C-alpha cells in the first residue's frame, strides 16, 4: 500500500515534468535540427568533396544520434545547480511522502526520457539530409531501441553524478570543458574505437574507461552494422555498469550535499 502511494506520487511528479517539457519541446527540436543539419551537411556533403570517406555522413548521423541526448546534459546540470544555489525547489520534494532517493530517480527518469526523444529525432532528420547516402535498411531496430534506452539512462545518471560535483554555478563551464567535452570528443564523436586503436593502442585501451566510447560504439553498431565497432552486447554490459555507478554515487553525493536523510 505504502509502495503504491510512492508510485502514485512519482507518477504525478513525472506528469508535471511532462507538462513542462511539452512547452519547450518544439524549441528543443528546432535547436537540435539546426545543429544536426549543420554537422551532417558539412560532413556529408562538403568534406567528401575534399577526400573524406563518402560513408562518413552516415557515420556522423550515428554520432549525432548518440550526441543529441548529451546536449540535454549540460542545461539539465545548469538547472539543477541553479536550483541548489537559488530557489531550492528540490527541498520541497524532500517533504513529500516518498523516500528522498525517489526525488533523484524522478529527475533521472525525466532527463532520460528527454534525451531519448531527442536521439530518436536525429534518424529521420539524418535520412532527410543525406537521403541516398544513408540507408535505413541496415538499422537493426530492436538493437537500436535498446541502445537508445541505455544511452538515455546513462545521460540521466551522468547528469545527477556531474551535478553532485559542481560546487557553484560559475564553475559549470569548467566542468563542461574539462570533463564532459573531452570525454565526449575523445569518446569517438568523430572516429570509431578501432581507428583510435590503430593510431594509439594505449590511448584506445584507456578510452575503454570512458562511457562515451560505449555510447558511440553501441549506437553505431545498431545503425551501421556490427563490423568495425566494439561488440554491441559488451557495450551494453559496460554501460549498465556505468549507469549503476553514476546513479549510486550521484544520489549518495547529492543526498549529502543537500542534507537529505
Amino acid at each position, binding site marked *: 500500500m505504502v509502495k503504491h502511494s510512492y508510485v502514485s506520487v512519482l507518477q504525478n511528479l513525472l506528469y508535471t515534468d511532462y507538462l513542462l517539457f511539452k512547452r519547450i519541446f518544439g*524549441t528543443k527540436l*528546432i*535547436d*537540435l535540427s*539546426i*545543429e544536426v543539419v*549543420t*554537422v551532417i*551537411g*558539412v*560532413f556529408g556533403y*562538403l*568534406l567528401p*568533396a*575534399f*577526400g*573524406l*570517406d563518402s560513408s*562518413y555522413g552516415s557515420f556522423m548521423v550515428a554520432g549525432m544520434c548518440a550526441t543529441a541526448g548529451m*546536449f540535454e546534459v*549540460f*542545461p539539465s546540470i*545548469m538547472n539543477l545547480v*541553479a536550483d541548489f544555489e537559488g530557489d531550492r525547489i528540490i527541498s520541497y520534494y524532500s517533504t513529500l511522502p516518498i523516500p528522498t532517493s525517489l526525488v533523484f530517480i524522478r529527475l533521472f527518469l525525466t532527463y532520460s526520457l528527454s534525451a531519448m526523444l531527442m536521439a530518436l529525432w536525429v534518424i529521420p532528420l539524418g535520412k532527410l539530409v543525406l537521403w541516398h547516402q544513408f540507408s535505413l535498411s541496415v538499422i537493426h531496430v530492436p538493437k537500436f531501441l535498446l541502445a537508445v534506452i541505455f544511452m538515455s539512462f546513462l545521460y540521466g545518471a551522468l547528469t545527477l553524478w556531474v551535478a553532485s560535483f559542481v560546487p557553484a*554555478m*560559475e564553475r559549470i*563551464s*569548467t566542468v563542461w*570543458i*574539462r570533463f564532459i*567535452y*573531452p570525454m565526449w*570528443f*575523445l569518446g569517438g*564523436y*568523430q*572516429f570509431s574505437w578501432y*581507428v*583510435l586503436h*590503430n*593510431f*594509439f593502442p594505449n590511448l584506445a585501451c584507456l578510452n575503454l574507461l570512458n562511457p562515451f566510447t560505449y555510447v558511440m560504439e553501441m549506437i553505431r553498431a545498431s545503425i551501421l552494422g556490427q563490423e568495425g565497432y566494439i561488440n554491441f552486447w559488451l557495450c551494453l554490459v559496460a554501460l549498465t555498469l556505468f549507469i549503476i555507478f553514476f546513479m549510486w554515487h550521484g544520489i549518495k553525493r547529492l543526498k549529502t550535499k543537500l542534507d537529505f536523510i
Partner: protein
Amino acid sequence: MFKHFFVLKELLRADYYVFKTTFFSSFYDVLVWASVNTFAGGYMLPAFGLGIGYAGFMAAGVCAAAGLNMVYPIVMKIVTDFEGDQLYSYYATLPMPTSFIFIRIFLNFVFSALAMNIFVLPLTKLILWYRFDLSNFSIPLFLIAFTMITIFYGALTLWLASRIKHMHNMRSIWMRYIYPMFGFGGYYFSWQAFYTLNPQLAYLNLCNPMTHVMEIMRTAILGQPGFLNFWFSFCALGIFTVLFMWLGVTRLKKRLDLI
C-alpha cells in the same frame, strides 16, 4: 573626458586582479579544449581520407576558434548578472558614459583572451609536430590576425549578450546562430574549396564573419595561397566588429534602460 578614462582604467585594473586569480584555471580550460580538438582534427580525421596535410589546416582552425570558446562563459556571466545581482546598475552610477560599462566588458574580454589564447599555437605544434608545417608562418600577420579575431570575439560577446533575453534562451541562441556560423564558416574547409563546390553559396558565406576569422588565421599560419586575401578578410572583420559593437552597445543600453 580624462576623468572618464581614469574610471575606466580603474575598473580594468579591478578586472585584472580578478583575472589574475582565475588565470590558471581558465588557461587550463583553454589548453584542454585546444588539445582535444587538435588531436581529433590532426590525427583522427586524416585517417578517414583527408590526408596528413589536413592536420595543419585543422590546427590553424583551432587557433582561430579558441577565442570563440571563451565567449559562451562570458555571455553567461553577463546574462546571469542582468537577471540576478544587477551589478551593472552600480557601474551606471559611476562618473562615466554608460557605454563605457560595455566597453569595459569588451576590453576585459579582449585582454583576457589575448593573454590565454596566444599559447594555443605552440600547443598545437607540440601535439602535431611534423604534421603541422610552419614554414609559411608569418609572425607579424599572425599577431595582426590574432588581435583582430580577439577584438571581433569581444564585440560578438556584447552582441550575443544583447540578444539573449533569459538564461534559458542561451542554448537556443548558441545552437541557432553561433554553431551554424561556425560550422559553415570554414572550421573544417577553406572558402576556396567551398567555392569550387558551390560558388553561389560560397559568395553568400562571405557574409559570415567566421569565414573571415578562419581565413585570416590560416593565411597567417599556412601562407596566402588557397585562402582569401589577408587584407580583404581583415577589413571584413573590422566592419563586422564595428557593426556588432554598435548593435550590442545600443541594444544593451536600451534593454537595461541606461541613458
